[in-house]
């Protein structure tokens, strides 16, 4: 049979030589290896003080974006919910009333927008599907919680803070 890789090695079934039976050289070799490891760079990252950098393509928790004037970009078109393979997104649309032009960018907006973070697989399809650049995956990951309902993120969890309020 042809070997799949050239890394295959036949098992050595020869009886042990005298040096191998002595067992001491093998122990000495092992101990020199472990001794070298004492001085090697440690793999540990001391977490709260040091944080490991994320990959540039990391996909974390979702955020709902606002435009330059602080209005919500989302128009509740539902394309993200359709694109979502895990069916983690639910939303309810509502019509913008006169006087709310400073809150919502277009005539329709999401009155309710929920993402179930336990269902979400962080694939980023919602981000790609969104025609209004309203949803993005950020660089934070889902924190722990005691109950399931704590993982259903509503609008107040997802919306980024209004840039105007900060001023």
């Amino acid at each position: 049979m042809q070997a799949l890789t050239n890394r295959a090695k036949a098992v050595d079934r020869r009886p042990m030589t005298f040096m191998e039976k002595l067992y001491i050289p093998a122990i000495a070799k092992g101990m020199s290896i472990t001794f070298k490891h004492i001085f090697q760079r440690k793999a540990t990252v001391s977490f709260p003080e040091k944080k490991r950098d994320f990959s540039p393509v990391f996909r974390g928790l979702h955020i709902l974006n606002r435009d330059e004037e602080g209005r919500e970009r989302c128009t509740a078109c539902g394309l993200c919910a359709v694109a979502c393979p895990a069916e983690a997104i639910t939303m309810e649309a509502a019509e913008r009333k006169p006087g709310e032009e400073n809150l919502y960018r277009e005539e329709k907006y999401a009155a309710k927008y929920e993402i179930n973070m336990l269902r979400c697989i962080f694939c980023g399809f919602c981000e790609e599907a969104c025609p209004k650049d309203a949803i993005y995956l950020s660089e934070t990951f889902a924190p722990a919680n005691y109950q399931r309902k704590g993982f259903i993120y509503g609008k107040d969890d997802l919306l980024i803070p209004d840039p105007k309020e900060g001023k």
Partner: protein
Amino acid sequence: MTLLSIDWFFIIEKVLLISGVLVLSLVVAMYSTWGERKIAAWIQDRLGPNRAGPMGLLQPLADGGKLFFKEEIIPSTSNRFLFILGPSIAMLVACMTSAVIPWGDTLTIAGREISLQVADVNIGILFIFGVVSMGVYGIMLGGWASNNKYSLMASVRAASQIISYELPMGLALIALLMMTGSLSLKDIVEQQRHGLWNVVYQPLGFFIFLVCAFAECNRAPFDLPEAENELNGGYHLEYSSMKLGFFLFAEYINMFISSALMATMYFGGYAFPGMDKLGLDGNMLTILGFLALFIKTLVFIFFFMWVRWTVPRFRYDQLMRLGWKVMIPLALVNMLITGAVVLARQH
């Protein structure tokens, strides 16, 4: 009333010395646990305990405090008296051995010569052997009294392991005794002070003693009595709180004492090369000698840990084969060669 004239200074001196040695062994054992975890971590490319205090130096205190506050459980089907006796014997025996080890030469304070050895008995090595072989009773009684199959298996293992390895250990020592002609540890050190270290004359004997010391201390690769992954901790499976702590602590004290013993018998004890040429006065030299012994001991403790995190545990039949078919014949050959050389030297 001069019949009972007691040398009070003598008693005070010995009490101070005993407490000093005891505190030293306890502190070293305490920090051995820290060292063990640090070295294990370094060998495995980790950092080890570093949260409690600078470099994790308060970790042993935290561990000890935790053990004290744990719930103390005595199984209802256990033999209560023996269950408590087990760890007590283990601890007592571990602390007793240090009595005959010469921790240094003599100090001269206010005209009194104070020997840094609790008791210079002329049967020092014999005393150590007697006490150490009692140590296994702690493990045996503890394991048996727990009324648990794993613990029982562990105590049977411990008993047969210690019997098997005490023989080559004794035989290796006999070769050393034939050379030195004295059982007193102080004499052995003084001989090495004026000559070469015994390890030069007895390399094979030292090696046998080292391997057997690993087995006597139940350290890896001979930690079969407490094999975590086959016997769930073995003899201390049913123990909790400070009784468990005593068992673990006794192991570290034993390690410290056997390291000190190896340093004393084979590596010159408190003597170091060029000691008498320094031209220092007695007290200074004694302190330096004590430091030399301490460093040698720490090196051996490091070696114990280094081996533990390198070599995997032996199988039980391998352990027995190594003990009876390799170690004892080797020790006998070593004894024979030493005897022949000693005889040839005399003529």
